[in-house]
């Protein structure tokens, strides 16, 4: 096995959790890389959907934006944005949604809106975009992010999208019928919600990562699974596929005017 970066491990661990039967609502960045690595390795029939309206897309390079031409050109069909949010997302046709976070709490609630007070923000972040409804309409949610104390926080500054709320059956109490956050994949570890409390629990550590490293980059007291494992390392195929994809992407997006 060649060497690999924490970011590569994160992307590949996320890719492995995807299957041929999934219909994924893909975000830009790590989710997009993970979904396309899955499609190019073990899940060739996975359906990828980007919120710009492209359904069943098969890009050969990763999009820089959620609506790159490549997504439309390789899609089965492209629908309007209102249709995307009404028929496909709200209609309950998406099995899996990916979300990122500026702040995440132990119950999978997410903030991408503001740091500080909403009306007097220290940092005005981009906002929720599709996230508030992705979080509740997709069959389940995977979250990818790099660990940092300012990212994995005890309490969010703003609740952009709902995860498991205060934990337990909070989703059900709000009438939400979908599973919510089912997996958190970071650069250090893979986390799953506890079946009862719904608190994210570390189930596997990436190669070379210690419990202390996970705790040092997390703002809450971390729970580790009794059966803590090591995340299987990337295979040659997985790593090669990811790196090829990124090389093609750099070539395509690199220079001004396609140079």
């Amino acid at each position, binding site marked *: 096995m060649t060497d690999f970066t924490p970011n590569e491990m994160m992307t590949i661990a996320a890719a492995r959790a995807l299957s041929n039967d999934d219909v994924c609502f893909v975000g830009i960045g790590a989710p997009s890389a993970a979904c396309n690595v899955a499609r190019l390795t073990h899940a060739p029939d996975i359906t990828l959907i980007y919120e710009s*309206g492209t359904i069943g897309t098969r890009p050969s390079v990763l999009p*820089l934006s959620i609506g790159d*031409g490549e997504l439309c050109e390789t899609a089965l069909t*492209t629908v309007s944005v*209102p249709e995307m949010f*009404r028929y496909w997302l709200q209609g309950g046709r998406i099995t899996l949604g990916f979300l990122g976070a500026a702040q995440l709490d132990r119950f999978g609630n997410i903030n991408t809106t503001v740091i500080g007070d909403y009306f007097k923000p220290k940092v005005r972040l*981009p906002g929720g975009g*599709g996230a508030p409804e992705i979080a*509740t309409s997709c069959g389940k949610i995977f979250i990818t992010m790099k660990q940092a104390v300012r990212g994995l926080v005890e309490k969010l500054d703003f609740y952009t999208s709902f995860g498991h709320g205060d934990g337990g059956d909070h989703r059900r109490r709000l009438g939400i019928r979908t599973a919510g956050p089912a997996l958190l994949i970071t650069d250090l570890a893979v986390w799953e919600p506890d079946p009862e409390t719904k608190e994210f629990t570390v189930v596997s550590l990436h190669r070379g990562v210690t419990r202390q490293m996970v705790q040092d980059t997390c703002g809450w007291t971390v729970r580790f699974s009794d059966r803590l494992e090591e995340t299987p390392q990337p295979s040659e195929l997985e790593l090669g596929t990811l790196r090829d994809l990124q090389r093609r992407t750099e070539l395509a997006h690199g220079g001004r*005017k396609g140079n």
Partner: protein
Amino acid sequence: MTKFQSLREAVAENLHDGDTAAFEGFTHLIPHAAAHEAIRQGRKDLTLIRMTPDVIYDQMIGMGMVKKVIFSYAGNPGVGLLRRMRDAIENAFPRGLETVEHSHAAMANAYEAGASGLPCAVLRGYVGAGLKAVNPDIRSVACPFTGEELAAVPAHRPDVAFIHAQKANRKGDVLIEGIVGVQKEVVLAARRAVVTVEEIVDDFEGLHPNLCVLPHWTVKSVVHVPGGAHPSYAYGYYARDNAAYLEWDKVSADRALFAEWMKTNVLGVGPDVFAARVKGL
């Protein structure tokens, strides 16, 4: 009836100080040329609606033309934050900026409701989400059959919509292809619509019957501006200029650099420069 006009005339006739305006495009077909003309004409006190206020709204906000933005995702797509918009919100520079914030789903539904002539949109949205607490325009209705509480938001009814499209024919019918976004909806929701196009063709004979076409009687003004979406792209014409989006991150980070850039690239030129900008893309 549709007028074929210069961009200067179209903006002068259709965008007024204090208007609620939407310059729409979801990554694709963003009407940059129209926004730059609005900047040159120095419109004031605008309320801007857009799902993804990106570079053009950052520019208009940075120029102090905007009093309020209604939006769902304020980012430079694939790059990062909108630095002029942040400066307005965080530091009230060059003026304070009122924001009304929604989710994408709510914004898309609000355009759909506007196009549908309804006063509000109803969706299953915002469950457990924080925006409800800070945006009084997010309310609810109970389904009269199941009792389920659904979210309601006001329909978007902008005074004027600006979009960019691939083609118009000589009558002023407009064809939009590829990622069509909310463009049909924003035109039908608006009182007036201005469309810049890559190309004007004689007619639409031979087109597939189910394409996205806006009949001429839904459009006030058609303007021929080749390249008018740059650095966004036009499916079938030119690709996205990703480097320009990366450059914007640097330009917008500095107030003086921003002012200089706007002078050189917007205030001092006309819509004719766009054609050259997309050569080779």
